[in-house]
């Protein structure tokens, strides 16, 4: 448990201060992911040239980040609560197609299609939550099941209704402006929605008392129930949140690209989990932060897009992301150990 700062016998006052500040920093789940983000920014800033640093370069990774980010946030909350959700990969295209079929194929008002799509996301989330809380099957398996269920139904119903696996939708100007517009010609409006999600979920996890319940749920479900936390309702709520967020991204996609495809969204499953883990969330639950997830998402998106601005083979990007994930887990473990072993100077001496 020897801490480098603690082992000095008579620290000067300024070192005490430094020690305290360092301890507080190490205690934050996002400490490791912040360093990762800075490293990746420096790397691509150096090798990506002016293209990466330009507005268009920034827009390219911010657009990616905003879509993954909206999904990574609730996935992160679920992971902090000790659960996983794979089904988002199927909910995204299912929501896109629901909106496209209702508003495009049948020509009903846009708000009806959007409501139906978001409702679908909530319903899949509710089903996930219900199955997870009523059975002892791990959420990984349950959500793989509901993913295939959703995917199969989406494919079958789309072909049945529309006669093809893609449906197009031309949104009304107002809907387009709210969900699918480009600011300055290159920044997706989704980025602003991401900010809304970040602020809202930051409030939920770090400021509202309910955040404490989420940490407790992931720390020890049995004890959380014993102290009176409504663990089942909370779990169902978190799954509905992730279903809703996935559907929201599905809706934004159909508004941006004006068409919906059955097989879109699979990449979001692993990508969102990677963003969350790079962001310092403990895979087994109980530890993590919203800011960390945002850092993780930015890091992932920079590597994902930045690689095209360098002279490197784009396939190297996957190698970097894989390595980054492992490094992130290792550094986060180290920081977690530091956080656990750290105590303030006063405490150590007495």
């Amino acid at each position, binding site marked *: 448990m020897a801490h480098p700062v603690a082992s000095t016998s008579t620290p000067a006052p300024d070192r005490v201060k430094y020690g305290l500040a360092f301890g507080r920093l190490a*205690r934050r789940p996002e400490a490791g992911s912040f360093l990762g983000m800075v490293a990746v920014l420096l790397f691509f800033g150096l090798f990506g040239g002016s293209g990466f640093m330009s507005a268009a370069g920034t827009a390219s990774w911010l657009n990616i980040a905003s879509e993954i980010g909206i999904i990574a946030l609730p996935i992160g909350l679920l992971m902090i609560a000790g659960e996983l959700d794979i089904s988002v990969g199927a909910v995204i295209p299912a929501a896109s197609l629901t909106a496209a079929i209702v508003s495009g194929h049948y020509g009903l008002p846009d708000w009806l299609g959007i409501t139906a799509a978001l409702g679908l996301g909530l319903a899949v989330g509710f089903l996930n939550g219900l199955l997870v809380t009523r059975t002892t099957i791990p959420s990984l398996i349950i959500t793989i099941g509901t993913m295939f269920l959703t995917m199969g139904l989406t494919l079958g119903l789309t072909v049945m209704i529309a006669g093809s696996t893609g449906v197009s939708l031309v949104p009304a100007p107002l809907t387009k402006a709210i969900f699918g517009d480009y600011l300055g010609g290159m920044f997706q409006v989704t980025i602003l929605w991401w900010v809304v999600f970040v602020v809202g979920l930051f409030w939920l996890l770090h400021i509202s008392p309910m955040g*404490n319940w989420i940490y407790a749920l992931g720390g020890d479900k049995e004890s959380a129930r014993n102290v*009176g936390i409504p663990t089942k309702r909370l779990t169902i709520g978190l799954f509905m949140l992730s279903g809703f967020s996935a559907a929201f991204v599905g809706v934004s996609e159909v508004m941006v690209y004006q068409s919906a495809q059955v097989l879109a969204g699979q990449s979001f499953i692993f990508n969102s989990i990677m963003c969350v883990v790079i962001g310092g969330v403990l895979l087994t639950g109980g530890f993590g932060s919203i800011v960390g997830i945002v850092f993780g998402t930015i890091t992932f998106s920079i590597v994902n897009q930045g690689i095209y601005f360098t002279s490197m083979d784009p396939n190297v990007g996957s190698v970097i992301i894989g390595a980054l994930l492992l490094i992130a887990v290792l550094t986060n473990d180290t920081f977690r150990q530091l956080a656990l*072993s750290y105590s303030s100077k006063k*405490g150590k001496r007495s």
Partner: protein
Amino acid sequence: MNDKPAILELRNVNKSFGPIDVLHDISLRVRAGEVLCLLGDNGAGKSTLIKTLAGVHKPTSGQILMDGQPVTFAGPREAQGQGIATVHQFGGTFPLMSIGRSFFVGVEPTKGWGPFKIYDRKRANEIAVKAVRDFGITRIDDGDRLVGGLSGGERQSLAIARAVYFGARVLILDEPTAALGVKQASHVLRIVNEAKRRGLAVVFITHQVMHAMAVGDHFAVLIRGAIAADFRKGEKSREEITDLMAGGETMADLEAQVEGYMETHEGHPPSPQVVQGPAAP
């Protein structure tokens, strides 16, 4: 010292899981400001007994009384509501939460109103730190520290302070000193004495005779789900208790005696008077 009414009492409690009888005819009482030490080897039925006290299990037959009134607990929540708090071996169960957050988990202090209620971190930390320091653990001074960073003894102390803060009257300590070093264990024992001084009834489950001797007023030895010996402080020497607990020859003798008795009495265990451990010198 015997005239105070018992806060918690078990009367002829039996517990069986299907065909397996785990607890036989247990009668125990614990009074305010008294420490009852429950001694016994692994598999003696200690954890079943604790769970029955804590409302996790319902007795198959027999009664649980609180303040002389028969009670039944629908679950651990209800037992907690009546003031029975259980602290497990590793104390805080949320190692990655801060002291303040884990202290108030489920009953977070808030400020603001309506949907804008926010978790009052400052107040939670202040109260939590004060509660632990009042129990003499002065090393804890920062409510933002993670529970996992505390020593085993500090964690136990935090858990006990939490139980007391939330109005526990009966404190069930499940092997609180088992995983601790000598110095840490003495911290916990001091906390147990402090809880006793504040008038709590303490049920202290342990293997270590020294620890039991240090705080116990009343001792019960559990063998094969039955109370094999029941005595008060000063009635037996440390050696005798050690013999009873340590699982040495005398323990084996006792078990053989109990088994022999059970074989000839249709599986019923002897009453505490029949088996009295090693002959008193």
